[in-house]
């Protein structure tokens, strides 16, 4: 299916771009004035989901079965009253960070990753959600999970194995990558090889900060992560993570990551200077691509601003559909490439802060 729409979730609404005769133009804006924090396209059904994180009114979720023509508000997932935070207070939904279908053999089943540190499961296409209790009660949670830039840990990546829907991974900031092979009954940390440079023991089993986790469609045992402490890749389903951060002062910090499903050695990142300096490196925006599993990285700058640029790119603000890539920045710029990142064009310089992008 050709993905001829680009959905851009911003701090003040959802902006929809439409591809026409090779050009991408704004078709319309929806939810104007509202902070659209996440957009998900269910590839099984082409249904759209939009998450809105209101400043005052809490987290909301909207669903469209007709590619954005009409929308239905969905009752929000609820933490049970006995789901307690480390402080002893009852957990309440702060934000939806991740959304995934549960596998092609599970029609109507969905997963949500949330803050504080929860995962919810729906068996009726989002009409109701249940907290996945085994993960919530994981023995590492109380003492080894913690928030990163937020008050509480949050689950921002959900990767379901297309070969076996009982097998999936999640990534938590901060805790790390966890795997289940029985549909969420049992969970194991999968963080060997990762580095948590901010902790007294950088090689802890739990306490890592993956910023985004993706699996290769043609070989799901190959996964990539842009981590707080570098770029990592595994070829064995997370048994061991290899640090593939570039050498020679190549920046290791960032949030955004895209991978090529048909070429397991190919990926893109968009570096920021550092944890302490969250701006484009040398105030010059670049996308970095590897075609050899991270042995070498190429900086791609054609069409991107090369001076006085403060932009960084959030974890869900970089999307790919075959050779077309798009990313939106914290200062409201939106860029698109139709040649695997070799060159870029500006789609807009006037958006609010971009929170997420998705092709549809």
């Amino acid at each position, binding site marked *: 299916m050709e993905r001829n729409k680009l959905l851009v979730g911003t701090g003040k609404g959802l902006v929809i771009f439409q591809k026409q005769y090779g050009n991408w133009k704004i078709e319309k804006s929806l939810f104007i*004035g509202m902070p659209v924090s996440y957009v998900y396209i269910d590839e099984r059904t082409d249904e759209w989901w939009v998450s809105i994180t209101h400043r005052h009114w809490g987290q909301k979720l909207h669903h469209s079965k007709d590619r954005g023509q009409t929308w239905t508000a969905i009752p929000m997932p609820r933490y049970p009253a006995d789901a307690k935070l480390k402080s002893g207070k009852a957990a309440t939904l702060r934000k939806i960070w991740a959304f995934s279908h549960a596998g092609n053999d599970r029609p109507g089943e969905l997963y949500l990753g949330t803050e504080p540190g929860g995962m919810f499961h729906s068996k009726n296409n989002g009409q109701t959600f249940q907290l996945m209790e085994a993960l919530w009660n994981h023995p590492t949670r109380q003492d080894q999970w913690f928030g990163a830039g937020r008050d509480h840990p949050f689950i921002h990546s959900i990767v379901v194995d297309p070969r076996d829907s009982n097998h999936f991974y999640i990534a938590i900031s901060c805790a790390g990558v966890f795997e289940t092979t029985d549909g969420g009954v049992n969970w194991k940390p999968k963080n060997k090889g990762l580095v948590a440079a901010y902790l007294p023991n950088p090689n802890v089993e739990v306490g890592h900060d993956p910023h985004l986790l993706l699996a290769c469609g043609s070989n799901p045992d190959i996964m990539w992560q842009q981590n707080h402490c570098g770029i990592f890749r595994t070829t064995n389903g997370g048994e061991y993570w290899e640090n593939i951060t570039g050498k020679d002062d190549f920046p290791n910090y960032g949030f955004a990551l895209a991978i090529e499903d048909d070429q397991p050695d190919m990926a893109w990142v968009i570096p920021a200077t550092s944890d302490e300096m969250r701006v484009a490196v040398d105030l010059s925006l670049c996308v970095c691509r590897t075609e050899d599993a991270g042995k070498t990285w190429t900086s791609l700058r054609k069409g991107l601003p090369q001076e006085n640029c403060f932009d960084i790119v959030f974890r869900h603000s970089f999307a790919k559909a075959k050779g077309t890539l798009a990313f939106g920045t914290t200062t409201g710029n939106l860029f698109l490439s139709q040649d695997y990142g070799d060159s870029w064009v500006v789609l807009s310089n006037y958006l609010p802060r971009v929170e997420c992008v998705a092709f549809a």
Partner: protein
Amino acid sequence: MAQIRFTSALKRFYPDLKPLELEVSSISEVIASIEEMYPGLTDYLVDEQGALRKHVNIYIGENLIEDRTNLKDIVNPSDEVLIFQALSGG
């Protein structure tokens, strides 16, 4: 009966929202009555444990309510109750 008024910001989500006159004796009863008349609206005001959302305020007369967790503040028939959001910039 107590007079209940709302911030105009809520009309974005509930365009038919109007001031109410309610026979209630507490803020929790106000919230329950609102939910009956405007299903789903209380999800904008309180979290799933029933506590007032952090950036939502309720006044009884000129006083902010004290019990944001269980909403047990007393409402008298002569009271005016104002429900609004905390002001913010950006």
